[in-house]
């Protein structure tokens, strides 16, 4: 069973079969099956939540809440989608709520900047790239919660518009519009700081 772990990508038929089996067991109250599912899916969800929220500790809290929520709702789940897709949706929603609850001021600089280069001898290209990433992180805070979420799922997580629409619970057209606005805002913000 080790290694039979289906996350969103790459698709793994055997992993999905194993997931479906573990999901049924967990829905019937098998805690060990749930723990196995969690070990499988937690890393991808932590990555997703870190990208959405901008820092690891909030991401861990969000994923923890998402799993507890999932455990409570499992009896009504009935394998309508894969466990991984379902968890992705629950985690996204949880993160959206966290972002909405943030005070606007608190989000600035909350993104946990990467440590500054320690040696001035670092190649210029690396320093430049880091600056650009820092600018991008800051610019992300200018976006609305919904724009940020759609943009992160599209650009950092590489999801399709269809998938994002499903995960966020809005139409594909609305997702496209948000990603467009986000790109617009980000290109302008990045351009202005050059």
């Amino acid at each position, binding site marked *: 069973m080790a290694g039979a772990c289906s996350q969103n990508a790459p698709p793994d038929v055997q992993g999905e079969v194993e997931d479906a*089996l573990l999901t049924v067991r967990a829905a019937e*109250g*098998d805690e060990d099956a749930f723990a196995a599912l969690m070990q499988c899916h937690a890393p991808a969800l932590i990555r997703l939540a870190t990208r959405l929220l901008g820092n690891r500790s909030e991401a861990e809290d969000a994923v923890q809440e998402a799993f507890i929520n999932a455990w409570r709702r499992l009896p009504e789940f009935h394998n309508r989608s894969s466990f991984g897709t379902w968890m992705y949706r629950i985690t996204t929603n949880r993160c959206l709520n966290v972002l909405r609850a943030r005070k606007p001021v608190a989000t600035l600089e909350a993104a946990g900047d990467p440590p500054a280069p320690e040696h001035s001898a670092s190649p210029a290209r690396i320093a430049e790239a880091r600056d650009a990433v820092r600018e991008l992180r800051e610019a992300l805070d200018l976006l609305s919660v919904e724009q940020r979420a759609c943009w992160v799922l599209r650009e950092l997580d590489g999801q399709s518009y269809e998938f994002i629409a499903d995960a966020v619970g809005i139409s594909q057209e609305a997702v496209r519009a948000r990603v467009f606005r986000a*790109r617009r805002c980000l290109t302008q913000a990045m351009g202005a700081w050059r």
Partner: protein
Amino acid sequence: MTAHTDPSDAHSGSPHTDDTHTGDVHDDERLPCGRLLSQVWDDWERGPADTADPHLRTCPHCRRSVRGLDELESAVRDLRDETTDTSAYDTTSLTQRVMDVVRLELRPGRPLSLGEPAEDLWIMESVAARTLRAAAESVSGVRAGSCRLLPLDISDGTGGPVVEVSLALHAPARVPLPELADQVRGRVREAADRELGLAIGAVDIRVTDLIDTTADSQEGETR
């Protein structure tokens, strides 16, 4: 929603004049060449195949708008790489915290009576199911899924209750299923009797998947 208005030179037309392309993109922008920014970026996103459109290759306005996106993309790539590294993420403490909550929560479930009516002894269905699944999985290559226990309105010889078991299995491919099912039934009955003291009526088995075990021969080892 925060509105980030355009630089003034970008307005050659009303942003509201043509929304046919992307539905509710209200703050779209019409480039001086007449194209909508959202359309140009859409083409960019679809990839190089669309550069077949000669306008996109030659129009300075379109090219400039795409260059901004390209620059953004390079920072995005670095940020993506920076946030990708969770492959080595240790799930132990997260799993522990969640399971601490999960184990404290009572799942509504069916209690099954054990022993004689006068005895007040019960076991939760989910707990009994765990034992029976493990028994089924002691047959090589078998994985147990759903396991439901249904109390029957009959009693065994001593007046104790009888339950019917409904078990879903993933069975190994290329193994005769009737024999496999008999083997599983035997193990389930034995465990019910020996470990739980539960009298079992029928054991219904549904094979929900056949697993080709040639690919991974370590299968059958359960946690």
